[in-house]
């Protein structure tokens, strides 16, 4: 098994039960990265992050350094950390927020310094009650320690960090929806252009939005240098990354792996990782990167966990969540549940998304319940085509945000991979898996 022996970056501290406390954080090198950053020029810090080629860990995989460079000189700048994590089967930020909040805070401070931001917000999903308590507790400790607030560690740099709780809306994770939510409004994604909040963001001012795991990598990058980070992984997939493995595996969980050096086979089957499909069953299919991603079959299992490679193979690494389905899985039901999620979470601004999701949900449910018709498959593909013309990957977008074009993936690929199973449902008027 070709597992690399790279030391973990964002999970190094988690073996300690008190990893969330300042005491443990300081005992394990905490806030040293910030101290080091504060001795550098802000531009130098940004340069290290650029050299690291750190890809954003929130799903879109945009290089953090490049995003920061778009923050044009302006009198007001904001930093917003996205800890809304609501993508189904993604549970990595949840882990970091509860177990290593100081690392997120330290990363936030480093990013704030590099971008010369004096006001930062950490947006944490409202359902993470313990996470909110841990994060606020850590912020209180950090203020008392002099790591946040006025004149940090005597450097002359000041920044305020406010913890902001969400209130239950998947769409508040989309960055412009997040900003609307943070402004006290409904989390309606904003019409693009401008494509980046770096142009017009929070309160109309230039804003950087980054994922929590992206932030948690920054202390290490400042300490060890961007090139050390870039030396890990392969191609544009640098460093390590958290993969959230769930579904029919023996050992579900979060695994921090060097990017591009491990394959899906390793992740799912290695005894120290997924441990194989549960109950001695066979692998039927897996979702490589969150429920917006096209599915893969067993024949794609030797692909490496690399953004480029998975992209070339017609799907995406997305939020880094891998869902395993065994040979007893009803794919119709699985696809239905995913589209039901989108239907419930569509914000309703765009017709293709709002109406399309509802129609697809109804038709797939009808098939799953045994009252489907043979034309339904064509109907489904037609509705999907109306949401995202061409049914290609990456998908065409007709809507304000990419939630819309994410809807067809599970349906289209389930039909393409398992058309026979859909037909059995329709012909026999029942689900063969009961």
């Amino acid at each position, binding site marked *: 098994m070709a597992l690399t022996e790279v030391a973990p970056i964002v999970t190094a501290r988690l073996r300690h039960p008190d990893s969330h406390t300042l005491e443990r954080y300081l005992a394990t090198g905490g806030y040293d990265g910030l101290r080091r950053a504060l001795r550098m*020029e802000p531009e130098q810090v940004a340069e290290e992050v650029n050299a690291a080629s750190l890809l954003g860990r929130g799903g879109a995989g945009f290089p953090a350094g490049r995003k920061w460079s778009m923050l044009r*000189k302006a*009198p007001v700048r904001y930093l917003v950390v996205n800890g809304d994590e609501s993508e189904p089967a993604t549970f990595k930020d949840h882990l970091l927020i509860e177990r290593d909040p100081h690392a997120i805070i330290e990363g936030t401070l480093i990013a704030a310094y590099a971008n010369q931001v*004096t006001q930062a917000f950490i947006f944490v999903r409202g*359902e993470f*009650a313990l996470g909110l308590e841990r994060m606020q507790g850590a912020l209180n400790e950090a203020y008392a320690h002099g790591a946040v*607030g006025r004149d940090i560690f005597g450097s*002359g740099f*000041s920044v305020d960090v406010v913890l902001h709780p969400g209130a239950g809306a998947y769409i508040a994770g989309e960055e412009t929806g997040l900003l609307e939510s943070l402004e*006290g409004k409904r989390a309606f994604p904003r019409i693009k252009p401008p494509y980046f909040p770096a142009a017009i963001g929070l309160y109309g001012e230039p804003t950087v939005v980054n994922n929590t795991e992206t932030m948690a990598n920054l202390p290490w990058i400042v300490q060890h240098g961007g090139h050390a980070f870039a030396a890990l992984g392969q191609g544009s997939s640098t460093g390590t990354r958290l993969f959230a493995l769930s579904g029919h595996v023996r050992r579900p969980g979060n695994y921090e792996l060097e990017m591009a050096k491990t394959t899906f086979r390793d992740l799912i089957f290695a005894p120290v990782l997924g441990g194989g499909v549960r109950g001695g069953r066979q692998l039927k299919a897996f979702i490589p990167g969150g429920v917006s991603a096209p599915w893969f079959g067993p024949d794609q299992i030797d692909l490496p966990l690399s953004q480029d490679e998975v992209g070339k193979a017609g799907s995406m690494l997305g939020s880094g969540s891998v869902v395993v389905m065994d040979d007893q899985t009803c794919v119709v039901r699985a696809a239905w549940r995913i589209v039901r999620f989108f239907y419930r979470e569509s914000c309703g601004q765009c017709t293709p998304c709002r109406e399309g999701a509802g129609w697809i949900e109804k038709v797939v449910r009808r098939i799953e319940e045994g009252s489907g018709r043979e034309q339904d498959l064509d109907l489904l593909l037609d509705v999907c085509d109306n949401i995202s013309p061409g049914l290609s990957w990456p998908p065409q977008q007709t809507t304000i945000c990419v939630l819309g074009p994410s809807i067809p993936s599970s349906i289209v690929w389930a039909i393409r991979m398992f058309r026979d199973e859909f037909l059995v449902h329709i012909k026999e008027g029942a689900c063969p898996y009961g």
Partner: protein
Amino acid sequence: MARLTAETVAQARELMSLYPDSRSALVPICHLAQAQEGWLNPEAMEHIAEIMELTPAEVLGTASFYEMLRTEPVGRYMVSVCTNIACLLNGGYELLEHAEERLDISVGATTPDGMFTIEEAECIAYCDRAPCLQVNHRFFGPVSDERFDTLVEDLASGRLDDDVPPHGVLCRVRREGGLAVPAEQVRAERAAADQARDERAAAAQAERS
């Protein structure tokens, strides 16, 4: 006592002062208000509007968008059973069915004693413990039928009072500390620092050429 208590009002004003635009505090204030009675009743929303200088419709307009903010009463314990993909594959719907049977109510309803409400939740980011659920946003998983029954008994008897506060109570840790300097002053200082850095850069440039 439908309006906000003096203590909640004080906390709300504190929250409003944290943001460059006080409206940003609306959702956090709704969470606070909801802690009083477990839901946002109309009088509470009117009071929030008063404090924030918004209209009650603006408060309702925002609050009604968010799943966690309740504009109807719910039980002391909101049991949110996840049925999304990872839980579906691990018996999430069977767990939801068991919950309905055990509590003798269907999804969306509250037990007659006002103790429990059941809802079907989307992924709660606890997928490696599927099938899982939250009670008032505190996590439990994996949950077997037996574990569910024990959980319900423990909640009803008060044995879990420390871990699971009544519905509406979210973050029990208050903010301590903060910048305590007006944002304008920070901005002025930063502008000066920016200028100093530009001058340094210009000087370095001049030296090189």
